């Protein structure tokens, strides 16, 4: 979706301000909101693409005014309400008002470290040969999905070059909707600065994105 989260090339946000000796978390609630989000994914039954969609799918003014972990919290609430794990009334009142959804098992303390160390690899077996070769010129499709996509607006319609092939990976656009993993070839596509930002752009700049095969079309 063309939302406020898709920030590449946007203007007016000002300088980057780094905080010296920044702690991992700034407030205790950030620790708990982060941990709750990570710990609820398996019992809740959602995947990383659903989580990202839940965080970005909100009014721009909401996305831009909330802090990072406030967005995480809002995303977590959305995912749980959608699945009937909790109700909005429970979240607002802070009280349990309905029985738990049956068959849900919390992650045990002993399971945490192995699960984090394992992660969730997204590479899958290839079912068809790759359509594009390294070095080939490609054009990013000018598409505007209304749901989750990982094709940023600033590269759409632009000409790039295939630089790497990373194998077949789970496709976020379908996985975020529960419509299956639909693994596709994933490429690193490189663009020259002036192709993206016009003739006055820094000629020493090049930018790449990682793009699934269905985001690409042949250049000619």
């Amino acid at each position: 979706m063309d939302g406020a989260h898709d920030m590449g090339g946007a203007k007016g946000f000002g300088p980057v301000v780094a905080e010296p000796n920044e702690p991992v978390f700034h407030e205790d609630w950030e620790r708990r909101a982060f941990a709750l989000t990570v710990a609820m994914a398996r019992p809740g039954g959602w995947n990383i693409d659903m989580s990202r969609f839940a965080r970005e799918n909100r009014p721009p003014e909401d996305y831009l005014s909330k802090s990072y972990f406030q967005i995480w919290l809002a995303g977590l609430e959305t995912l749980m309400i959608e699945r009937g794990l909790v109700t909005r009334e429970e979240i607002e009142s802070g009280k349990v008002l309905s029985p738990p959804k049956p068959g849900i098992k919390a992650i045990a303390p002993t399971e945490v470290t192995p699960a984090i160390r394992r992660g969730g690899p997204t590479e899958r077996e290839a079912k068809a040969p790759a359509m594009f070769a390294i070095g080939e010129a490609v054009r990013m499709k000018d598409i505007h999905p209304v749901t989750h996509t990982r094709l940023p607006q600033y590269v759409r319609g632009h000409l790039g070059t295939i630089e790497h092939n990373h194998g077949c990976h789970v496709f976020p656009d379908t996985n975020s909707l529960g419509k299956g993993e639909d693994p596709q070839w994933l490429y690193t596509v490189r663009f020259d600065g002036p192709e993206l930002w016009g003739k006055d752009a820094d000629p020493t700049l090049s930018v790449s994105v990682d793009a699934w095969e269905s985001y690409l079309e042949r250049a000619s």
Partner: protein
Amino acid sequence: MSDHDHHGHHHHHDHDHSELSETELRVRALESILTEKGYVDPAALDVLIDLYEKKIGPRNGVRVVAKAWSDPAYHARLMKDATAAIAELDYSGRQGEHMVVVENTPDQHNMVVCTLCSCYPHPVLGLPPVWYKSAPYRSRAVSDPRGVLKDFGVTLPDTTKIRVWDSTAEIRYLVLPMRPAGTEGWSEEQLAELVTRDSMIGTGLPKQPDEID
């Protein structure tokens, strides 16, 4: 609160105290609801937080870089299959399942961003700092990386090519900075002192030998 209290107070977000308290209460209530329903075990949350605060962080990446600088065979393995080479040092997993290392050279400087959210190589760098997740960085890293570098006090020669890697999929990038001159014969431990977190994102450079004790 007097004006004085606000001086020099550049917070990472600009919500006032009452709003923070509201969020704090909301998160506490949510945790107790989820615990009561049996969906989460608070002890598991403690383990998770401890992991990200104490065990997973940029010191892991520092070891990777220092080893790559001092061991040519490791460097070769890291450039060929970063996920496997990083796993040799026992770092693996969530948000680092598919690692790629990009090496700075005199001709090319690499910088990593996630314009769409906050993708970052957790096993080697930990959780991202606030600036990495912020709108200024996400918007400008791809269009004005030299301006961003200036914000970090870094100026590169005009002839150096800048390559920005936008982490739009599950590939996670770690920058291998250039080994500083004047470090010939240094041990891996000594070299590690020079590696900064920002030098592994590409918004900074490693320390020079005269910058450490």
